[in-house]
Structure formats: structure tokens, C-alpha cells
């Protein structure tokens, strides 16, 4: 299976090659164990090359912008590309020239999901109702990124308001999977995942309400991190389901996703649901491979969730997950099978809660104060037309479901019951995580499927969220990282492994993930699809 993997042909033409070859802190020149060297942190590489004067922020930015120009017509990851990238990069170079201190994200090119507010830059959540809307403020996560020197490359495509698993529900465009342009990148943060996979940006922000960071990370072969609910401020994230939404991170390595996560984590007085828990220094977890012991994860207890490997999961995904488990064992982990009895209840509960909250959260899009207003003779007509024309089909369906679930007489049977299920799920996870350091499962029941394949079968699409929604209901941190390839597309399709940790124990996930990634032999998760690029 792995033999189908082609070396990335087109990418060799692009400046990326030079960055990848430069010396790095992480696992530098340690490719003795494999033909393909372990993936290297783009954030650390950038920092090194900027500090050494090997290159400039402007040069790096130009190389990424040219890659965007070349690949974007096929991929359509971005809804908007910033006009200020080079100007921002110049400022970084000026700081370097003056010998000023550089933020940890200096010169790092970051894609931001379109439902995260960026001041003065279009932020539409891929919805017609917010077409051309430019927020007057930055989301807290974006503000932090900018303060640390990060450069926002642009706004990435998504399913409208985060509702979807394929990014086909964008009001504006369909994003292609860089591994196979005929396939979906997953969703709803499909643009953010695909952009990182295609190296259009180094890292990106997504949002995860029921798997919207993790599932596209799996489909696109990148690392996706969904932090604990409350770890990252939601201020400036356009709410889909407030009790489930979190801002998450994409990177081509665990270290990149972890460092971006560190940058945006922490209490925010503008979000009362953000946590005051200390944010540990994740970076110390990203040791280079030279420092690994023979069994670097010795004694780490890993529970593999039995219910995630049962019927309905593709055999390729199942075997990739089992191989990943064996790899963890080889690293010293103690593997056991755990059962979460409430597992199958999560999906319906999730769709009731998420739809209910979204029906309320999307009430503000009424065409009165901002966004698209359709002029009408009287008030109700104004609401009807503005919302009728502004929202897409999937959004309308979820608003209707949620409105129904919250209606008098149905509340107890749906919303309240779903909350009871949520309590059960939390309890089951808690018990399993008392016995284990982390839990593992596939990130999705299959690899990326064809564009249009599930478009008219919402239930089939919803079923694809079964691996991820429970984690949101429990509010736990989880990371997806590529663990193997299955057949499909020109050169195989990536499959992600999901690692779930205890609340606020992101550190452990990053540690295990990083060691797993650096020691995984024989795989390089760089998509070949850029072959179409001349």
C-alpha cells in the first residue's frame, strides 16, 4: 500500500524544498532510520532561517504567495487572500534589521478560517448573508497571533457557519482535497486543512464543533488539534453551537499545531467560558529524535476505543488504526481496549444540541444591522427574504431542526434528553481516562470521499462525524495526526489517528503525538496532487 506513495513531484519546483532542506532544531539530519526524513516544524524552520539571515520574511511570504497563485485555481482553499502579507513581512524584516525581539510566530504565515473575525478583512463564515462583511475587531485568537508576529495570509473556505463535513456547503466555492482533486477535503474547516496540506500557509486556524478540525485533518493528511473547551477564547468566533465550539489548529507537524495552540491559548476576559487554567510551555515536548530513548513512551497507558473499530468503519481505516496502535506499543505504550457504552448515543445527541444552539445563534443574522438585507414591504418579509436568500440549504435545515427541538412540548424529549446523554458521555470518558493516559480511535470512518458523493444524503454525511462528536460533547482535547495511507486517488489517501486526552492535558497529547510522528517510518504526508500545477 505504501508503495503507491509518490515523491511529491510538483512541490520540488517550489521554494518549499529549500525550507525543508534547511537545518532545523527538530530531528535535524536524523534520517538514518528511514529513507524519508521525519516531518519538520515549519514554525521553527522559519524562525531559524530568519534569525540566521538565511532568508527574509518577505522572501518566505513571496514563495507562499506564489504557491497560492499556482495552486489556488484547483484547490480553492481561500475565500480571501490578504493584501497585506508582504507589508506585514516587511515589518518583520525591519524588526530583524533593527535587532528587535521577534515574537515566536514572527514571519509565520497563517490561514484563518472564515468564521473567525479578522479586523477589516472579510469574514463571512462562507455565507451569503455575511457576504462582504468586515468585522471591526479581531478575534482574540487572531489578536494574539498578530501580537506574536504571525501573518494572516487569508480567510479559508468552510462549510457555511461550520455546518457540514465536506466544505461543499460553502456559499462561494468547493475546495478540493490536495491529495485528489476529485475528493472533498473534509469539513467544516476544509479550507484550513487543505491549505496547510498544500503548503499554501504554514499553519492555520480552524474551528471544531463536532470534528470540524479533526476530520479534515484526517482527510488532508495534516495534524489537527482540538483543544479542551475553554482553553482558547471563542471571542470573535462566529458561534455555531456555543457549548461545543472551539478554535483549533492545523499544522504539517505536531510541533507546529502545538506551538500555534500555545499562542492562542489562555483565559480571555471577553469570553466567560474561557478557562483560567495555566497554559504549560508545550514547546519542551518537541524534542528532536536524537534525544528519544529507545522506548520514549514507556508506560504511557493507551486505551483503544472498541466501539470505534466496529461495523461501519472502512477496513483500511481500521487496519491503519491498528498499525498505529502497534507503533505506540513499540514505543513503550501499554495498550488496552476500552469500551464507552454511551458512544453510539453521541451522534444524535450532538445533532440535537448543535442544531438547537445554532437556531439561536444564527438569529442575529436578520439583515437589520449588517450583512445582506433584502428590501421588503414589511418587517416579517424583510426577515423572511434576508434569511431565505442569505442562508444555504444545510444551514436552513439545521435551524429548522433546532427550532423544532427547542419548541414548547418538544424541549424535554429532545434538548433536555440530549443534555442527559451528554452527561453520560462525559462520565464514560472520565472513567476511561482515569484508567488511561490517552484514548485512541480513527478520526473518521473512511478516508476522503468524492465531491458530491454524500451531498444529497445528509444522514450519511452526519454518520461520518461519529468518531469526533463525543469529544466535543465531553469538552475534551483531541488531536488527529496522519498515521497511514489507504488506496485511492493518484497516490493513496491519508488516514488520521485521533488521540483523546483528559481535560486541559493538551501537553500529553502533544508529547505522545510528536514522538509518534517523528518515529513513524516510511510515510511522508505531502500530497502529490500539485502535479496539475505546471
Amino acid at each position, binding site marked *: 500500500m505504501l508503495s503507491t506513495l509518490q515523491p511529491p513531484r510538483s512541490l520540488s519546483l517550489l521554494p518549499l524544498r529549500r525550507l525543508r532542506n534547511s537545518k532545523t532544531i527538530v530531528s535535524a539530519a536524523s534520517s538514518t532510520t528511514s529513507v524519508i526524513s521525519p516531518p519538520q516544524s515549519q514554525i521553527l524552520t522559519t524562525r531559524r532561517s530568519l534569525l540566521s539571515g538565511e532568508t527574509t520574511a518577505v522572501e518566505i511570504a513571496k514563495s507562499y504567495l506564489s504557491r497560492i497563485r499556482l495552486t489556488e485555481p484547483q484547490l480553492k482553499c481561500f475565500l480571501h487572500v490578504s493584501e497585506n502579507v508582504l507589508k506585514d513581512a516587511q515589518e518583520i524584516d525591519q524588526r530583524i534589521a533593527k535587532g528587535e525581539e521577534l515574537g515566536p510566530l514572527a514571519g509565520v504565515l497563517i490561514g484563518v478560517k472564515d468564521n*473567525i*473575525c479578522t479586523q477589516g478583512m472579510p*469574514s463571512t*463564515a462562507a455565507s451569503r448573508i*455575511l457576504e462582504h*462583511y468586515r*468585522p*471591526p*475587531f479581531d*478575534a482574540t485568537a487572531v489578536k494574539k497571533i498578530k501580537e506574536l508576529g504571525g501573518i494572516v495570509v487569508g480567510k479559508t473556505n468552510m462549510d457555511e457557519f461550520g455546518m457540514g463535513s465536506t466544505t461543499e456547503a460553502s456559499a462561494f466555492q468547493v475546495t478540493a482535497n490536495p491529495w485528489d482533486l476529485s475528493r472533498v477535503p473534509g469539513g467544516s474547516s476544509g479550507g484550513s486543512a487543505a491549505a496547510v496540506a498544500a503548503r499554501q500557509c504554514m499553519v492555520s486556524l480552524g474551528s471544531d464543533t463536532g470534528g470540524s478540525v479533526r476530520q479534515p485533518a484526517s482527510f488532508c493528511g495534516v495534524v489537527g488539534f482540538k483543544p479542551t473547551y475553554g482553553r482558547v477564547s*471563542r*471571542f*470573535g*468566533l*462566529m*458561534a455555531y*453551537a*456555543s*457549548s461545543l465550539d472551539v478554535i483549533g489548529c492545523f499544522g504539517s507537524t505536531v510541533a507546529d499545531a502545538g506551538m500555534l495552540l500555545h499562542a492562542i491559548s489562555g483565559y480571555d*476576559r*471577553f*469570553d*466567560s*467560558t474561557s478557562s483560567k487554567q495555566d497554559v504549560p510551555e508545550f514547546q519542551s515536548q518537541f524534542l528532536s529524535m536524537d534525544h528519544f530513548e529507545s522506548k520514549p513512551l514507556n508506560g504511557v497507558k493507551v486505551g483503544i476505543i472498541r466501539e470505534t473499530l466496529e461495523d461501519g468503519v472502512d477496513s483500511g481505516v481500521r487496519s491503519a488504526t491498528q498499525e498505529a496502535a502497534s507503533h505506540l506499543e513499540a514505543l513503550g505504550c501499554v495498550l488496552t481496549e476500552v469500551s464507552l457504552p454511551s458512544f453510539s448515543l453521541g451522534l444524535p445527541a450532538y445533532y440535537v444540541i448543535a442544531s*438547537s*444552539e445554532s*437556531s*439561536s445563534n*444564527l*438569529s*442575529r*443574522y*436578520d439583515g*437589520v*444591522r*449588517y450583512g445582506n438585507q433584502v428590501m421588503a414591504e414589511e*418587517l416579517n418579509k424583510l*426577515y423572511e427574504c434576508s434569511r431565505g436568500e442569505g442562508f444555504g440549504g444545510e444551514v436552513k435545515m439545521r435551524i429548522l431542526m433546532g*427550532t423544532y427541538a*427547542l*419548541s*414548547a412540548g418538544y*424541549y424535554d424529549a429532545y*434538548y433536555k434528553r440530549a443534555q442527559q446523554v451528554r452527561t453520560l458521555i462525559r462520565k464514560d470518558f472520565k472513567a476511561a481516562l482515569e484508567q488511561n493516559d490517552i484514548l485512541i480511535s480513527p478520526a473518521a470512518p473512511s478516508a476522503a470521499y468524492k465531491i458530491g458523493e454524500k451531498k444529497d444524503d445528509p444522514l450519511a454525511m452526519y454518520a461520518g462525524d461519529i468518531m469526533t462528536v463525543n469529544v466535543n460533547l465531553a469538552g475534551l482535547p483531541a488531536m488527529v495526526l496522519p498515521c497511514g495511507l489507504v488506496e485511492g486517488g493518484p497516490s493513496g489517501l491519508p488516514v488520521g489517528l485521533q488521540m483523546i486526552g483528559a481535560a486541559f492535558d493538551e501537553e500529553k497529547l502533544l508529547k505522545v503525538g510528536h514522538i509518534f510522528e517523528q518515529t513513524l517510518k516510511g510515510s511522508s504526508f505531502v500530497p502529490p496532487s500539485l502535479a496539475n500545477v505546471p
Partner: protein
Amino acid sequence: MSTTLFRTFQPNQFSLLGTSLLRRRRSNNFSVRSCGSQTTTTHEAKQSSPTRVAPKNHKSNKLDEILRDYEAVIGIETHVQLSTLTKAFCSCSNNYGSYPNTSICPVCMGLPGALPVLNSKVVEFGVRLGLALNCDLSLKSKFDRKQYFYPDLPKGYQISQFDIPIASGGYVDLDIPLEFGGGHRRFGITRVHMEEDAGKLLHSDTGDYSQVDLNRAGVPLLEIVSEPDMRSGIEAAEYACEMQRIARYLGVSNGNMQEGSLRCDVNISIRPIGQAEFGTKVEIKNLNAFSAISRAIDFEISRQALLYNQGKADQIVTETRLWEEGAQKTVTMRKKEGLADYRYFPEPDLPEVILTKEYVDSIRASLPELPEAKRRRYEAMGLGMQDVLFLANDVSVAEYFDAVIGKGAEVKLAANWIMSDIAAYLKNEKLSINDIKLTPHELAELIAAIKDGTISGKIGKEILFELLAKGGTVKGMIKAKDLVQITDPVEIEKMVIQVVSENPKQLEQYRSGKTKLQGYFAGQIMKMSKGKANPGLLNKILLEKLNAKD
């Protein structure tokens, strides 16, 4: 004796109360004076002007007969706008009367991505009011979303409290003014909950368009829901009045009805006396004066009773009616088709509100003396109910009065000075008691100076106005103006002898039976003493001299 003297020199003492009583009776106008503010004198004139007579008074005795067979059941929802510096969920300033849309931010505009953060003052005020209304507090309460579409509601939902309000199960005690029959009442309080206000719509004159002003959006409110315990317009108005008074005593709101800081919606139904189940409930809105509450209810009772009486009870439907101040009647605003479904659910953007026992205790300890406690205390001091209600009505007046008696002034005298001359002065000058220069200490000094005979009551009244306007001390003024009362009988006798001897003609008339001339002599002597002669002593000596057989 001093009391008597005091009164003789103050012929207008009760004129203020007297006229207002008449006015209230004539118009069936609820007592604005006893409830309305001392501070907002500008509104008083409007409210106490003669009003059109409510239909109840129009109709014949037949209506009264009909009304006798029915009982009204009235409950009130009161919205109290809190006087916090900032709004409930953002840091915008909470200013009434700012230029439209100048006190707004992404949060209160409901921009995408904005989140609410609770202002802790709102909780504090909620606890204060809950305790003041003798409620049980929920140590763990939460916010919920109440959902409906309207252009003044930026988020499409109002953040409110649904099934777990911060306070519930309380009561309020109040006294009905004597002119309305008097008596003590206790009305149940169902609940007090925290919520945010909506913005305002400004409709164009042509009706072509409306504009939205979001300055008020997100301003904190406490909604107080009463039990359906009231039975008349007067009771309802007195209840509303007590809510205003308590809010002002607690300092949680200015309680100003004209600005909408205190808004009352009335629910009313009537039923034949003896019937246990309630009749069909009608809601009345747009009640922005206490008098309007009273009159709207009386109108509504008559309207419903007549419909009952004419066998048209089915025409009483669940609806919202609007009080029209001009026409003095209620009109249908909207008929409700069943219960509106607000699809309440817990607000996921805000954590639960957890109150610790220590927190509640600390607030309980910081509560001021409340109106009911004050009234009972004043009553126990021996003041009549009229005085009690007057003094306890306005928290500033009550505090002033308490300060005066705290300085040792006699209770009844202090009450009289405040209720008569000072009240009249405040009214004329359109001032609040907080604006006057006379300190409670000096008023106590003034009262003491009269009581111990240092100065006469007449002199006291004269210098009062100077003290009110300019301040200064009583002692200083007495000294500077040489106002000490003449209480030396020898000195007074000298003046008496002089005046009597200078008026032989009048003396003759007096002795031939025109004894009313005593007043003339007294006036002349008082004039000679520059008002300083002790009137009692003066009269005593004068009588002796006049009646003495030479």
C-alpha cells in the same frame, strides 16, 4: 406650649398636604405626592393637574351596583432598569438620553463573534432587591435565552432567566394612604430575575421607515413578578409605588417612570365574588405613571364587569391592551394566539451564577433600613400615619429626618418643620432635600433654640429660609442678628406699660368690652421688641395690665 405657639405662627402649616389631598380625591388620582419623587418636581405638576374623570366616576350608580358583584385579580410585572455604570454584558456606559447609537459596541450590537460577559453589579443589585423583597435566593441560578425576532433585539434573543430566577417567593408590606381607606397590606412576590433591555425603535413621521437606537440594548433590568394579590387600582398603584421606593432606597435604580427606568405591565382579570377560578386575563401596557396604573385598572374592571353583566363575558379575551392617557381608556394592542413560544434554553455563553453564603450575608449586612421598617419605626415613635407616609416616602427626606432626630430634635417638631416649611420651600424652589444648605444638625439646633426659648417660633421661621438658602449656623445667626428672645418679665413689662400708656383710646375700648384688641396690643409690643418678646410671657403680662383696675 411650644407646640401651640409654633402652630399659631405657622398658619399655612398643612396647606400643602391639604390641597393635595383634595386634588387626589377629586381626580381619583393616585397620590403622586406621597409616592412621586421630591426630586422630580417637574413631573409633579403634570401628574397632579386635574385629570379627566375615570369612567367609573362617570357612570351611574348602576355601575357601582354591578361592580359590587365582582372581584378583580391583579398581578404586576415590574421592570426596574438598574443604575449600573455599564451595561449588563459589555462595558458600554449605561447613560439615559445619549445621542442614538453612541453607547454601543460589538457585544450589545450582536455582531458575529461577540460574547456576553456578566457585569457583577447586576448580580449584586439582584441580590439586594431579592433580599429587600424577602425572597429566597437561588445560590445557583443561570441565564437563559428568550428568543424572538424584533429589530430592537440585536441578537434575536434576550438574555434573561427562565426556570431558575435569582430570587423567588417573597413579599412586600405597604400602607395604603388614609385618603384611600388606609390599612396595611402584604402582597406576594413570585420572583425576581435578571435580564437585559432591548433597544428602541424610532418611527419616522411618515411611517415609511423606522430607525433603531441600540443605546438601551443590553442595559440591565430586574423583572419583579408579583403574585395576583391585588384587588383594586389603588392597591396596584401603591404596590408599584413601593417598588419604586424600595429601588430608590436600595440605590439600584432611579426608578424614574418617565424615562422608562420603572415600567409596569399589569395583568388583570375579574370574577364573580365567590368564584374560585380566575377569569380571562388581560395585560395592560404603556402605564408610565402611578395614576395611570390606578385609572387603567379601574377602567378595565368596569369594562370587564359590564361585559360580564351584559352576558358578553366571551368578549373578554386574552390580549394585550394599551392604556391611552389622552382618551383615558384601554384599547386592544394585540390579541395573543395561545402562548408565545420563546423557546427558552440555557445561555451557553455564560457560566452559572453561583452565590456564596458569605456573599449574600455581606450584602444583607449592607442593606439600608427599608421603607417598611422605617414606617414601622416612625409609627412607634408616635407619628401619625400621614406623617409616617410623608417622611418615609422619599429616601432622602427620610434620611434627613433621621439625621435631625439623631441630633436630639423632638420627633413631632422635626416632622412638622420638614413637612411644612421645608417641603413648601423645596416645592417653590424646585429643589430636592439634598440641595438645601440647612444641615440636619442646624435644623435640630433651630428646633432646640425655639424649644428652650432662646428665640421665638416666629424668628425661627424667619431665619429658617436664610439657613435653607445660604447655610450657616443657628447660633451664629442668632448672635449676629441679636435675635435672642426676651424672656425677662421685667423687660417685657416695661414694653407693655409703654405701649398701653401710648394707646389710651384702645385701652378704653378694650375695657369697655372690645377684648379682641388684645391682639392689637400684642402686635405693637412684638413690633417694639423686634419680634423677640416671648409671646406667652407677653400675653400673660399684657392681660394682667389690660385687666388691671387702676
